[in-house]
């Protein structure tokens, strides 16, 4: 059936399409705040999340959870209450995975979602991307052995499922998140053998005294975790990393090593540690595929992550598309909440629902500035240093899905002439598997850039960030929608 480009502009999707002023994608700290503030201003809001419950990764919880193992639980409760107060204007689409967002003329946005075996489509005049972040990983020998978990997985199992990932657990990587994970595991009853921080002590951001002073609450949170670690007599080692995991069918131990400033292993410092579980994470990678689908401009953040560019209203470079939370730069839940609130108000205003409390805007912006300063200080205190690239062997797997090794990536660069991550992907398949480079994209970018004598550029990271299909959908689901649209 030939169709002219003009007819293609607003093709029939074959669905009943509910219409909203604002579609908030993600119900974590930023998304919850955005939905609440947009609805408070009078906008009709769809709050979309793949999870059964709101809260995202940060406030991941079980039914009936009393929140005592959560940080900032009272904030979560007040955000939830704000949403309940505006329930008539907010539709919470739980268990809805967004796989594609189309920009239609207007602009107007069509959010395409799967619900298990079904599909659902909504239309919205604005979109707020609040898709959060996940643990950033660096490959090292043995990191594919079962029993090696991301730090976030160990925490999600505990907070969301009530299950300990193992019994004798090593926590490693970089950043203050490791403290939260170790403290949670210890309080949950695991034996935490040690926390190995590849960078320096968290106090190193004391060189940002202004940021510190404005964020004493957050600092108090760090102190809280440190006290728990002390109570359980958990050693905290800085300038130390897990550089090898041992075991075949299951993890039997790890090798730690002292690192120099650039994270290169100091010879002779290796130590064997028996454990059945490793929880590891090197900061976070913002989940950016929906922002990329929507054509948002991106930039390189302080931590080397690709993030969306936004203005003071959290508006991206794409008209009608707002971005809030970790997708604009990793900064923690408190920053996410204020960004979400601003984005919600901005999107509501753009759809004719200007918030009436004009003075709040200034307060929100000042809060955002302070929290952003603190977040930046934290990111600068825990950088990933290039020496990690010496940890893997030639046969260490980088791409877990397609099982592509460091050696194969090197061959693509040196033998086949690949000069950027996209070319490496096309020749050797890292990042072409089921996770579409979500896990290995950062590492591939580092490895390719390093061979060329630089650090990853925006273009390098963009080469591993585009995912036109953001969540799995079956061909059968797509086919059914096609048949509906032509009936």
């Amino acid at each position, binding site marked *: 059936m030939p169709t002219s*480009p003009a007819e293609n502009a607003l093709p029939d999707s074959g669905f009943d399409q509910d219409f909203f002023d604002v579609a908030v994608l993600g119900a974590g700290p930023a998304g919850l705040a955005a939905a609440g503030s947009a609805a408070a201003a009078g906008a009709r809001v769809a709050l979309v999340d793949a999870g059964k419950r709101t809260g995202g990764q940060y406030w991941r919880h079980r039914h009936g959870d009393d929140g005592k193992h959560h940080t900032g639980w009272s904030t979560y409760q007040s955000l939830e209450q704000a949403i309940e107060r505006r329930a008539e204007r907010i539709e919470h689409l739980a268990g809805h995975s967004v796989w594609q967002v189309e920009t239609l003329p207007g602009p107007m946005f069509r959010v395409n979602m799967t619900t298990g075996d079904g599909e659902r489509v909504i239309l919205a005049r604005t979109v707020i991307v609040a898709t959060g972040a996940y643990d950033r990983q660096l490959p090292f020998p043995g990191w594919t052995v079962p029993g090696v978990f991301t730090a976030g997985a160990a925490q999600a199992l505990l907070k969301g499922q009530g299950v300990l990932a193992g019994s004798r657990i090593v926590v490693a990587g970089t950043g203050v998140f490791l403290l939260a994970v170790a403290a949670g595991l210890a309080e949950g009853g695991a034996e935490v053998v040690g926390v190995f921080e590849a960078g320096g002590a968290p106090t190193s951001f004391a060189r940002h005294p202004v940021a510190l002073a404005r964020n004493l609450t957050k600092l108090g949170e760090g102190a809280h975790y440190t006290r728990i670690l002390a109570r359980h007599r958990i050693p905290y080692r800085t300038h130390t990393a897990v550089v090898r995991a041992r075991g075949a069918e299951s993890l039997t131990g790890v090798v730690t090593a002292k690192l120099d400033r650039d994270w290169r292993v100091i010879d002779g410092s290796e130590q064997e540690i028996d454990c059945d579980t490793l929880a590891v994470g090197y900061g976070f990678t913002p989940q950016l595929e929906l922002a990329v689908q929507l054509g948002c401009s991106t930039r390189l953040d302080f931590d080397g992550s690709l993030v969306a560019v936004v203005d003071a209203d959290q508006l991206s470079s794409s008209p009608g598309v707002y971005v809030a939370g970790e997708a604009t730069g990793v900064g923690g839940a408190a920053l996410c909440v204020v960004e979400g609130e601003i984005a919600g108000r901005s999107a509501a205003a753009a759809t004719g629902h200007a918030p009436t409390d004009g003075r709040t805007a200034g307060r929100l912006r000042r809060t955002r500035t302070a929290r952003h300063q603190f977040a930046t200080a934290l990111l600068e205190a825990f950088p990933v240093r290039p020496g990690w690239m010496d940890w893997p062997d030639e046969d260490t797997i980088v791409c877990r899905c397609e099982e592509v090794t460091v050696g194969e990536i090197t061959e693509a660069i040196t033998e086949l*002439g690949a000069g950027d991550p996209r070319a490496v992907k*096309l020749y050797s398949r890292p990042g072409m598997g*089921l996770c579409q480079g979500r896990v290995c994209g950062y590492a591939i970018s580092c490895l390719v850039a390093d061979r060329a004598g630089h650090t990853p550029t925006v273009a390098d990271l963009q080469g591993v960030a585009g995912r*036109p299909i953001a969540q*799995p959908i079956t061909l*059968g689901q797509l086919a059914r929608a096609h048949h509906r649209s032509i009936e």
Partner: protein
Amino acid sequence: MAASTDVVIIGAGVVGAACAFYCSKAGLDVTIVERGPIGGGTTASCEGNILLSDKEPGPELDLALLSSRLWTEIAEEIGAHRLEYQRKGGVVVATSESTATALRGFAAHQRHAGIESVDLSLDDLIELEPNVTRAAAGGAFYPQDSQIQPMLATAQIIRHVRRTGARVITGTSVTGFARGRDGAITAVRTDSTTQPTIPARWVINAAGTWAGQIADMAGAPIPVLPRRGFILVTEPLPEVVHHKVYTAEYVANVASSDAGLETSVVVEGTRAGSVLIGASRERVGFDRTMSLPVVRKLAAQAVEVFPFLADVTLLRTYLGFRPYCPDHLPVIGNDPRAPGLIQATGHEGAGIGLSAGTGLLISQIIIGASTAIDLQPFRPHRFEEVAAR
């Protein structure tokens, strides 16, 4: 000024790589200039088809037959596994009795022109493709149809020619040409600070869908336009589709001049396990916007041919711009309007397959040998002749 070279090839896609392969073989000194990465344009966004089954007797078939033979030689020389070259054969499925009759006629016509084929009953079809729809009426098998992994093959061919002395300059755009007093091209100008001018006796325009811009710079315009095609990639699977499988309607669409969307599904497995579903064709310029209606239609057609695909997950989609000319024939040969310039583009959706023959023919032009097939139908200035008439 960079060292002089016999041949500058503009474009490191599969056509440029094949030209480099045969020019190097002929003893010529070769330099490839590529604005992006190796094999990063249309080569990176197609399926790697080396097809005879979709060709009608005529000049394109002559080129395809030559290329099909040459690909087996290239695979032997470089290593079939390095290119992921598979002579897997093509299976055309007829979904109705009338289509099956038409297909039998078409295949007989092709056999006279040198394309091997076998008519298939439904039982034969199921034996070749056990997962195919039982609603099929029959089909045809084309044993010569083959496949490569196009980006990998291009990179491997270029690696091969590099070892024999060819130079490859990536990330560098051509900005113009230097001409001698007689009007002949004497050098290629680039935006590179280290090699702003590359003197050459011959320049091959293998810039694919973007070859029109290069041709314009040389004052020898050719009407090369983009035709957009989407391809779907499934989750990795065991070997569930054994051949290149497509519906008989594809044959009609390939030769179509309709500007609107046409989809006729082509389904095939890959060495990596993913199934590729391709062949939408739209003329919408260089528009990179994702089109869900196209994706959904391709999915629906794929499920019709292979019902099991309904439960298979779509992993990603990609799109490419196939270079086509109004008469749907490639542009290959010396361009009299710019002596020294040899055009090598316009292969539309068949560039992977036709690249090998194109490369050989161009090397024959340069060394003054008689060409393996008649180049008259592919002459670059044919569009001006039509306009002048």
